[in-house]
């Protein structure tokens, strides 16, 4: 009997301790899908977290959290242990985030790359990576000699298809003869499979390789084979110094700092953010001088135009593979169309796997 009583006392004390802590200082939690040292997706989110820390706000993180039942447990635990704002940084955390948000109305949640905001304390945010893909396409179209561009794709979701289309459209603009060959690996992160895919594309005649997967394996294969490549999510230049023309960098730091401060000061409001080159959420690593100063200048100009809105990645006329018009001449694709993109544009080989 007294044992149960003791347990009760202890748990009450524990809860008091936890809630007392929550009132005392403001804390931000992060949930990562990979290890912080992946030098890709998670690495960049962690850089953002460090910026929040540098702004004088306490943070904690949990890395390598599988998308699924574990995610909900981890998010719930962060919410319970006195975190006031929680960033969940992978698409697969969408439902768990909303589920936990329902039970913790006083905690703010921010979910990356998702679209569900079922409760008023859930915001979503993502970056317009496709703007970076447009620049990659421009370079790829100019640099290829075989006119075959190899693309390692992860999962057939709108974000990945959008990247393939943006790249192909930009490459076609500078080189109408190019073909985009795609290999789906059905993983975000499997260096063995990614490097086999890169090698297969190179063997099939691709002399420019790009990836929508997170490991550095493809650029290393490209370096060895002497073909061009592009880094993903963070600057991968040191893994393939000769081969990499540039990397698309995800810069979450300003957003994380802004939102953390807003939450601390009580000005946080639910919103849906989709930032790109203009706001700096998508940034480009230094351009490789091997592509020649003229091309570097061209790309830098294009980058400025995309940022200022003078150019748009999806400017009509755009046709799908069968030749049906998707975007009329003179207009650009709206965000709704971009968010749900599920067809290839003309010039991409093959079909989207189901």
């Amino acid at each position, binding site marked *: 009997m007294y044992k149960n009583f003791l347990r009760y006392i202890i748990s009450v004390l524990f809860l008091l301790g936890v809630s007392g802590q929550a009132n005392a200082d403001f804390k931000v939690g992060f949930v990562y899908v990979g290890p912080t*040292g992946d030098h890709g997706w998670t690495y960049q989110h962690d850089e953002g977290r460090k910026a929040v820390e540098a702004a004088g706000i306490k943070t904690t993180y949990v890395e*390598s959290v599988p998308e699924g039942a574990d995610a909900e447990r981890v998010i719930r635990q962060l919410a319970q242990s006195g975190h006031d704002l929680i960033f969940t940084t992978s698409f697969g955390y969408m439902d768990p985030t909303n589920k936990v948000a329902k039970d913790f109305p006083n905690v703010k949640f921010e979910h990356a790359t998702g679209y569900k905001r079922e409760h008023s304390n859930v915001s979503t945010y993502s970056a317009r990576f496709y703007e970076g893909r447009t620049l990659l396409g421009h370079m790829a179209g100019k640099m290829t000699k075989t006119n075959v561009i190899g693309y390692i794709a992860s999962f057939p979701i709108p974000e990945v298809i959008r990247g393939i289309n943006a790249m192909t459209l930009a490459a076609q603009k500078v080189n109408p003869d190019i073909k985009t060959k795609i*290999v789906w690996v*059905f993983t975000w992160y499997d260096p*063995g499979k990614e*490097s086999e895919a890169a090698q*297969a594309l190179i*063997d099939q005649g691709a002399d420019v390789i790009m990836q929508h997967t997170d490991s550095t394996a493809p650029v290393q294969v490209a370096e060895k084979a002497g073909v061009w490549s592009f880094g993903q999510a963070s600057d991968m230049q040191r893994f393939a110094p000769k081969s990499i023309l540039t990397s698309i960098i995800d810069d979450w730091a300003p957003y994380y700092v802004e939102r953390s401060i807003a939450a601390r000061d009580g000005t946080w409001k639910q919103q849906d953010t989709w930032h790109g080159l203009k706001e700096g959420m998508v940034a480009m690593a230094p351009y490789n001088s091997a592509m020649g100063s003229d091309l570097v200048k061209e790309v830098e100009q294009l980058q400025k135009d995309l940022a200022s809105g003078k150019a748009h990645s999806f400017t009509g006329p755009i046709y799908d593979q069968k030749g049906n018009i998707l975007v009329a001449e003179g207009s650009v694709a709206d965000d709704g169309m971009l968010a749900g993109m599920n067809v290839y544009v003309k010039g991409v080989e093959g079909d989207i796997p189901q």
Partner: protein
Amino acid sequence: MSFDLNFIGILIGAIMASSVPLILAASGELITERSGVLNLGVEGMMIIGAISGFALMVITDNLFFAVLGSMISGLIISIIFGVLTQSLLTNHVATGLALTIFGIGMSAMIGKNFVGIPGKEFPLLFVNLKENIPFLGPIIFGHSVILYFAFLLPFLTNYFLRKTKIGLIIRAVGDSPTSASNQGINVTLVRYSCILYGGAMCGLAGAYLSLIYTPQWIENMTGGRGWIALALVVFATWSPIKVLIGALIFGGITILQLHMQAVGLRIPVQLLSALPYIMTIIVLVVISRDSRKIKLNTPTSLGQIFYKEK
């Protein structure tokens, strides 16, 4: 898209490279199983070999030490399995599964500081011959020394099991540990040695992945290859030469499906990744219908605990 002879040569070369970890791990496991021990910890020993090899490469900057170290660490991990199953007489299946889970967790912990470090170039042999001889060049030349060793290993294993005295002892222990023991053979010692050998080979298979195939360390980078190696031993009906053939088939499936995609052919990727296991089940069904063939190579005491009464 060209299907000229040289391209086919390159394709075969790529298939060979992808089958190396399977050959190494399966050949090691084959010896272990022929002595009557079922070690399901292949995946765990491989991943430990992968991280140890990579970590030693970073620390010592010496590829020889890295390869040697990966084998030793695979061996050390397998000692745990040996002590548990041979000395403490625990269940083989449960212990092997535990070893895999332990290996994956342990390697992730050791590997924390080695993520994101670029690997070192592993020397490839006869690279100029590879480029100058069409078709045969990319098949025979331009590989790492470990690949040549892996392709020799099944033949050596075959000879060892069939023609040497130690090979005969291992088979005797695997088929009937009681009779072997009555003949004065130290069953526990033989089984220990076979477990350690299997561990070392799995470690080497892991090092091939982290040092040569994708020179870097990534959590869980073996990606289920250990399980395929285990299936491969059964698929090969415990014959070393068939391990080689099976590894080429299993490796070929992965490489070909990527090439088929690049060409634009539609194939369900999920089905292809399940194919090695489906084929193993088919082989199991086929061999169980022909009892003469099973008896030929299957160690009859596989997975059974041997206890010598004193």
